[in-house]
């Protein structure tokens, strides 16, 4: 039972190197209104009323800064690469652990989402939705690595 759709183990490091800077960038974008100047874009009539009712799709917007788009895509890509790289000792039990962790992450994320829908409103809810873009993957990575760690520790202490 060899898992398909998994990247070689070396990709895991690449994933972390993409995901951590992207996560920090997104924190600054979300909470500090940070934006790279060179990702500014504008065309046509950009007076404030026009911009307020700007078109909602890529091919017709008048003005935008693409820092959040770039950060969001890098963050999702980085987390995907971490989540779906093989372990050094990948075998069938780790495949089962991976699937269980994915199930767990989806479940917990849905519960948190329901709680957010009930208890949070307006701006705070929108902020939580921003985090929600990547929380399933983050929950998965945390739970999967925790399980692997706990596993290795018990195997170590339980002798031959």
């Amino acid at each position: 039972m060899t898992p398909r759709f998994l990247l070689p183990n070396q990709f895991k490091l690449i994933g972390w190197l993409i995901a951590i800077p992207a996560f920090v960038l997104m924190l600054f974008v979300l909470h500090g209104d940070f934006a790279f100047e060179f990702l500014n874009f504008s065309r046509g009539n950009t007076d404030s009323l026009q911009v307020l009712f700007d078109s909602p799709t890529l091919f017709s917007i008048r003005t935008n800064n693409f820092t959040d788009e770039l950060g969001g895509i890098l963050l999702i890509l980085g987390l995907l690469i971490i989540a779906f790289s093989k372990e050094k000792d990948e075998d069938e039990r780790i495949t089962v652990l991976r699937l269980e962790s994915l199930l767990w992450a989806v479940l917990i994320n849905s519960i948190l989402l329901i709680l957010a829908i009930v208890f949070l409103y307006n701006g705070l809810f929108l902020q939580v939705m921003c985090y929600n873009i990547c929380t399933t993957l983050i929950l998965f990575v945390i739970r999967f690595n925790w399980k692997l760690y706990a596993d290795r520790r018990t195997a170590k202490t339980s002798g031959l």
Partner: protein
Amino acid sequence: MKNTLRIERAILNITQADLAEKVSVSRQTINAIESQKYVPSTVLALKIALVFQKKVDDIFSLEEND
């Protein structure tokens, strides 16, 4: 599912790591099978049986709640 992995290993005098290497899984997997935390796939069970030169159901057996 019960198993006699630990006993079979003792008979051949091999470690978990040795067995893990022979059936190409990690040592943690052998450990998890021995402590009944993980039920191996049919393929892995057959490979393990092959190492011990026995039939699969000489090593693995069902329990009441299976």
